[in-house]
């Protein structure tokens, strides 16, 4: 704990006058604020049931489980994840999730959250891709989703603020924008086919609009309990589902295409508070 406090000091000084991420807020408080400030958003108001369930969001169960996993000594190297740097310093989780993806000196590339988590589980703890701990990416039972939910929760209510200072960060964000608007696949869809307009429905589902801050912040606020799946899902899982429906090719987990898309996603939600974890239909 003493070590943590000492580490926080130089980071705080270095950040200096940079934009404040804001205070931690309960995810339901963030949602309620969005609802009140955007009474006409069909997307935000589409499910009374989910709004009602939000204080008892089942995703919150994973927060405690994830916390235990984070501080437990695990893997062949028998160490905790406290040495993992998500961009704010080793073990510093406050506000880390909303400031990803970012460039990491130690790998020389831009990494999104899941890529960084897996990196730490392999490099620090010694897990390999064959271990279920990192191999299993989806579902409430997976270590990845428990850890994701715990770590993301530490940034709830803070504004999305992925850094763009490093040229690689800007390059990945710009490529992500191109990917978002790139028509392709068997049915000529791009992401904007569904997310380019306000208040459109695909079947019964009201779609979030990429150009409307509060809608988009909620849209990219994964991890979220997805009621229809009865599981907590990640940003990567959402991308996989969209790309599948779009009839593009089958996308793999946490590859650079995901990173670029997430860089653009999170940039489009910039300045809006994150709902972590969220609850979705």
């Amino acid at each position, binding site marked *: 704990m003493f*070590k943590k406090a000492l*580490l926080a000091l*130089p980071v705080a000084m*270095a950040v200096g006058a940079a934009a404040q991420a804001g205070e931690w807020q309960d995810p339901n408080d963030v949602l309620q604020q969005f609802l009140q400030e955007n009474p006409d958003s069909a997307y935000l108001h589409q499910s009374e049931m989910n709004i009602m369930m939000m204080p008892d969001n089942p995703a919150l169960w994973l927060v405690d489980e994830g916390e235990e996993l984070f501080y437990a000594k695990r893997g062949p190297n028998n160490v905790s994840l406290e*040495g993992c*740097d998500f*961009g*704010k*310093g*080793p073990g*510093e989780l406050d506000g880390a999730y909303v400031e990803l993806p970012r460039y990491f*000196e*130690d*790998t*020389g*590339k831009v990494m999104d959250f899941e890529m960084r988590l897996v*990196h*730490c589980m392999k*490099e*620090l703890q010694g897990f390999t891709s064959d271990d279920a701990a990192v191999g299993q990416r989806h579902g409430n039972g997976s270590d990845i989703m428990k850890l994701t939910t715990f770590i993301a929760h530490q940034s709830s209510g803070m504004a999305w603020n992925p*850094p763009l200072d490093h040229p*690689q960060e800007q*390059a*990945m964000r*710009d*490529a992500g924008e*191109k*990917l978002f608007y*790139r*028509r*392709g*696949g*068997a*049915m*000529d*869809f*791009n992401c*904007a*086919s569904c997310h*380019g*307009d306000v208040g*459109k*429905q*695909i*079947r*019964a589902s009201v*779609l979030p609009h990429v150009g409307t801050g509060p809608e988009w912040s909620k849209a990219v606020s994964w991890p979220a309990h997805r009621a229809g799946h009865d599981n907590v899902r990640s940003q990567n899982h959402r991308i996989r589902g969209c*790309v*599948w*429906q779009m*009839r*593009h*090719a*089958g996308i*793999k987990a946490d*590859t*650079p*295409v*995901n990173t*670029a898309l997430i860089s653009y996603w999170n940039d489009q939600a910039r300045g809006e508070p994150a709902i972590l974890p969220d609850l979705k239909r």
Partner: protein
Amino acid sequence: MFKKNAVAAGMAAFASVALTAGCAVADGSKGSDVDITAMSADELAEHLIFETDSFRDQEMQEGGDWRDRMTQDDLQKACSMKGDPDGETAGQVVAMARASYEAPESIELGDWRKGAELADSGYGYRQGHRTDDHGQREPGGNCYNCHVFDPRVSDQGTIGPSLQNYGANRGTSEAVLRYVHEVISNPHQYFPCTQMPRFNSDRHQLLSDEQISHIMAYLLDPESPVNNQ
């Protein structure tokens, strides 16, 4: 260890250009040799799709592999802008779409009941963690995803215009039949850079001629529930 970490954190916050020592985490997987900052955003997007092992190596239902499906044709390239196309692009896209359309000798309406099923079906052409098997089930048209045909049916989308009473308002003249066939086959002939897929174009045929005749019947047949509201 503590000192190193503090240095790394501080320097990362300053987005320092070069940091040769003091990494918090040892790592064998350095970034690739490619300088992504030397590429244009378009070049980098293509690089990420085709050169970073981001997609599963699978055969596509329409033939070809994942690269074929992810490679853009001219129309897709022309329509990859944010927002609507400018006048010049729109004209080029219409010309492209018209040049590749082959009108059938005659068009007849099929069975509207089969058309309703096809309009509802979202099966087909999906690839990845679950891949649609066209040998088990025929692909559908996905029409309900975006269009209301019959407000009595729940869960119809609004990305495209409502088609309620489409045939009742237009009749079934030869000209109407030809127009609807053109739009389903390649809608860019009339709506450049529309979000609607090309169901029968020079790129590929997603719906058979017979399937298209059924969907047309669902839209135009006076007996179809679409036209009885």
